[in-house]
């Protein structure tokens, strides 16, 4: 393959920008896994719900997709909070596989109800600006992707501030590091868990809304995004917000360059080989701390 600087540059941009999407998808997944020790197999389903909500708000009420993001986030927070509080909480101290299976059942439920309600029709949100790009010399910058990346960074910063500068954040981190001590200190554990889960779902919804602008959406789309959450978390470190950003960008760049140099049919091969390597060398991911495996 002849090395072409323009193409390489464009692919750097491509990889970086899709890394932003991957990061936004994974933030919530990482949070829930790192702090609640729950592998939420329904995370991609939340992304899907966020995408559809944005789609319906746009199609039925002409609400701009970027403007409706806070609404979508709030709606999914409200949806996820009771799920954690009254359903997942019932089994949270059982082994990690139990919560895994519960979220698996939830994923089946959510995805198939969505399928029954909205059919398998493939949809996408097409606004006036969704196809626009900025041409900077040899590089094409798709506007929506740039916006997604900016939102990813913004959400990551907000989340980081929440976790480190607010009382709620301290409560969440305290609960994560020592549940018994936190309970003794009077922290309402069930409520804190549910809040964390809700926040994670809200970020998933934001990711979904942004995804609906660039990608086709359909009820079965969730599996791919849950999976991306897995990989990004392992790369970047569980429960680490900057880790999710880093992991997302690394995955995006690895995939893009592999697709460019070896062919699109190899895109995941290199990424996963690197993943295994990183796990062997730094088991907690690049920015994570070694988690005690419970259960």
């Amino acid at each position, binding site marked *: 393959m002849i090395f072409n600087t323009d193409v390489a540059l464009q692919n750097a941009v491509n990889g970086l920008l899709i890394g932003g999407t991957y990061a936004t998808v994974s933030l919530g997944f990482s949070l829930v896994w790192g702090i609640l020790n729950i592998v939420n197999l329904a995370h991609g389903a939340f992304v899907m719900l966020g995408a559809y909500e944005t789609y319906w708000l746009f199609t039925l009420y002409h609400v701009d997709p970027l403007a409706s993001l806070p609404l979508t986030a709030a709606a999914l927070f409200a949806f996820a909070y009771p799920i954690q509080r009254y359903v997942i909480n019932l089994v949270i101290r059982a082994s990690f596989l*139990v919560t895994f299976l519960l979220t*698996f059942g*939830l994923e*089946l439920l959510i995805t198939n109800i969505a399928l029954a309600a909205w059919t398998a029709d493939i949809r996408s949100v097409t606004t006036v600006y969704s196809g626009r790009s900025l041409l900077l010399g040899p590089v094409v910058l798709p506007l929506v992707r740039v916006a997604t990346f900016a939102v990813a960074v913004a959400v990551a910063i907000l989340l980081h501030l929440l976790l480190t500068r607010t009382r709620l954040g301290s409560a969440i981190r305290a609960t994560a590091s020592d549940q018994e001590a936190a309970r003794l200190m009077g922290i309402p554990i069930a409520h804190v868990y549910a809040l964390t889960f809700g926040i994670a779902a809200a970020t998933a919804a934001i990711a979904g809304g942004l995804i609906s602008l660039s990608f086709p959406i359909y009820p079965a789309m969730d599996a791919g995004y849950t999976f991306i959450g897995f990989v990004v978390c392992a790369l970047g470190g569980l429960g680490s917000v900057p880790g999710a950003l880093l992991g997302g960008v690394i995955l995006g760049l690895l995939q893009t360059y592999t697709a460019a140099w070896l062919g699109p*049919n190899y895109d*995941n091969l290199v990424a996963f080989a690197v993943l295994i390597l990183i*796990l062997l060398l730094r088991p907690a991911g690049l920015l994570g701390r070694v*988690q005690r495996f419970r259960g």
Partner: protein
Amino acid sequence: MTPRTLALGALAAAALGVAVAFPAFAGGYYVRLATGIYMFGALASAWNLVGGYTGYPDFGGAAFLGIGAYTTGILMLRAHLPFAAALGAGGALAVLAAVGMGTLLLRLRGHYFAIATLGFMLVLRQVAANLPITGGGSGMNLPIASAFTPFYYWMLGAVVLGALGGALLPRSRAGYAIAAIRENQDAAQVLGIEPLPYKILAYASNALLFGAVGGIYAYWFTFIDPPTVFNIDFSIQAVVMTLLGGPGTALGPVAGAIILKILDTILTNISLFLHNVFFGALVCVLIIFAPRGLAEVLRRRGGIVRAIRTELEDSRV
């Protein structure tokens, strides 16, 4: 030999007798369904060895299923080997791969082990999709089998092997080491148990079963391609079935496979479009009320309701 063991043994022998005679009196559809149940029973038992007994949740078991499937396929199609020989080679290769990858992957724990095994499966998937010898993404057609009934017996053999493994492993010397590793690996190490060989034993046994099932599956369905065999669905089903039936028991995974497959079939009959919704709700309900599996619920004293209530008390925050 307690009376209980004798009774259980007699029951098992009787069940086996019925299973062996089954194709003689049951219709083609039921035989096929039973074969599917045995297949997942074998996979669930296999997962139980490494996930239930040893505490290492493997989500990439399909890597070995794929190795078994493709090895069998390639040897039958291109080297014209008979099925049994090709299957044997497939199983052997799966074990070799498990020993090789296991030395690396089994150093990880918990979640990280889970993701790494998944990554391994996906790497193999893309490798298979890009090699000419596997037919690449188009898949591969194995030679057509002349009759179906042999597959029933092959899968029956697999599930019996799996159940035997699940019964013998905890009672063997390796079994004590493995139990120690599951409960507290660091303490076990302090006590002088070198964990890696035992973990590899469990992992390779799991791989042997997945690989054997893969080979049988390939010949049965005739057509295989990378996404079908290197598919996380197999592992997820195995995990669900084991957890529902009871991890750490010999027959729990098989019972889980029977119940889940039958439920799934009944649900599919009830509603063409909504069967997965019911299935998802069912999984949620079952997991909430029996998080340690039905075997645990049945084992507790005081009847089912009391058992469920105790489970809930133990599990909620």
